[in-house]
């Protein structure tokens, strides 16, 4: 690193290194992030009180982030107490053609098209996946294959969350008024490059379609592999006993 003749300091990368090493060695993520913050500050030669002040200001400034997770919790908890999961599972068990994979393909389609129309709050992990999508996926798997072992159940629950993420990410960016398109256009404009936001949105469509096809294909494939997955998980459970 000393060999490069430049005025750019590479010391702040210490924080990045702390994050990577911390996550790879599976230390508690909250501790890793706090340590990385302090290391970055020290590497930038900031005094300790200024590092603390920066941590504090940042944490207060970003307290809007957890709200979409926190605000629905009382409702979800209350409804779960009164049988929301059971109702969602009963409903999906009544639909003859429903399988776990097909259900998630439908959810992916709804989530992605809604996001592409700017309706990003339709869906989400707290209001949709935990109370509805994940239990429905489990019920759909059980309906066709009988009791499903915990390992397979967890795999499909994780897939339900993954489907929500894929739908949101690759849908929202083809909506013209979405923040990231504004960000891209203003950044390019600051550098003297004129672009039309509508064209940025349109050129996102091929990737959005590819995302839907790739993820759907994986879901359908997982559907077909479900009997083997169940057999393997049962064998592993037996072996553990």
């Amino acid at each position, binding site marked *: 690193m000393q060999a490069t003749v430049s005025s750019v300091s590479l010391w702040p990368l210490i924080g990045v290194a702390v994050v990577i090493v911390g*996550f790879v060695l599976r230390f508690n993520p909250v501790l890793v992030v706090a340590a990385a913050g302090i290391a970055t500050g020290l590497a930038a030669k900031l005094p300790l009180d200024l590092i603390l*002040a920066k941590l504090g200001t940042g944490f207060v400034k970003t307290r809007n982030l957890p709200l979409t997770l926190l605000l629905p919790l009382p409702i979800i908890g209350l409804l779960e107490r009164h049988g929301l999961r059971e109702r969602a599972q009963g409903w999906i068990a009544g639909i003859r053609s429903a399988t776990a994979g097909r259900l998630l393909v439908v959810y992916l389609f709804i989530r992605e098209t809604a996001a592409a129309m700017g309706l990003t709050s339709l869906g989400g992990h707290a209001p949709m996946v935990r109370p509805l999508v994940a239990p429905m996926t489990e019920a759909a798997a059980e309906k066709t294959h009988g009791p499903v072992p915990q390992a397979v159940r967890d795999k499909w629950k994780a897939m339900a969350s993954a489907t929500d*993420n894929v739908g949101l990410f690759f849908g929202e960016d083809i909506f013209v008024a979405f923040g990231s398109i504004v960000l891209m256009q203003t950044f390019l404009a600051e550098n003297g490059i004129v672009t039309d936001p509508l064209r940025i949105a349109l050129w996102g469509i091929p990737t959005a379609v590819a995302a839907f096809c790739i993820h759907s294909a*994986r879901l359908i494939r997982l559907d077909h592999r479900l009997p083997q997955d169940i057999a393997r998980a049962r064998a592993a459970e037996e072996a553990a006993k």
Partner: protein
Amino acid sequence: MTTLLKLDQLFLLTGAALLIVAWLTWRDRSNPRRWSSGLFWALWAAIYLAGDVLPPIVSGLIVVMLAALGGLGGVSLGKHATREPAERQASAARLGNKLFLPILTITVLALVGSLTLKDLHLGSLLLAETKNVTLISVGLGALAGLAGALWMTRERPMQSVREARRLLETMGSAVILPQMLATLGLLFTDAGVGKAVAHLATDYIAVDNPLFAVAAYALGMALFTMVMGNAFAAFPVMTAGIGIPILLGMHHGDAAVMAAIGMFCGYCGTLMTPMAANFNIIPAALLELKDKNAVIRAQWPTALMLLTVNVILLKLLMFR
């Protein structure tokens, strides 16, 4: 002009609820670490209730204490009085599809609110803070949905706080991770991490060949997003470092295509990193999965295949 609904009111509401959670935890004898767990929720409540008036250095100390309590196992679970499966089945049969209504209320009000509240006035009174319309709409939806759920289930409001505490405790200290990571992102920017990465990227990557240049830009977006946990932070750095000088300047590509697909390469990175905690770690906690990286495990094949497709699309569409 005065404003009726502000984000600050949601902060106060959240803070008050967290304070009740802290108090319930302190009284919960079934929790082996009730004092430190309660302290954790109370400190987080303080950030919501008094964040604006606390000196930054005090908030900073609170962050360090939260990290220490959360990171060293100070936050633990109590026993929660849940109902028997049979009771829940009976209630599900009785209430039927009405159970879905409160959730629908959150979603519909959040949608309608974010579309209409923006410029609504009553005389000189602005109805909602313009820049926070989406969050305020989610808040209104949550309140209306809660009122409906309480009426339908004939429960007391306190029960809903108890249920929220049950869900918070199952997630544990991971709930503060998104906020911690966003703070780290701000600190990275201040310390010049972006500049250092851009410097490495442009100095050490051979980019004369258009395919290599495209691949360097796409992979750089994905990798830098994985480190920062946020594609928005990666875009300016990679675009200034490789995109504008090489892809546009040297190879005369189409800027709109580069931006659109480049950002999506970043999103592929988001799917593969624990740094994007609110998308990848929080759901695993919320779904009570044993493996906290289970969502990333479910996502990475989609992300890698899509990243490959993106490199091909960039190469084909940018240089038509």
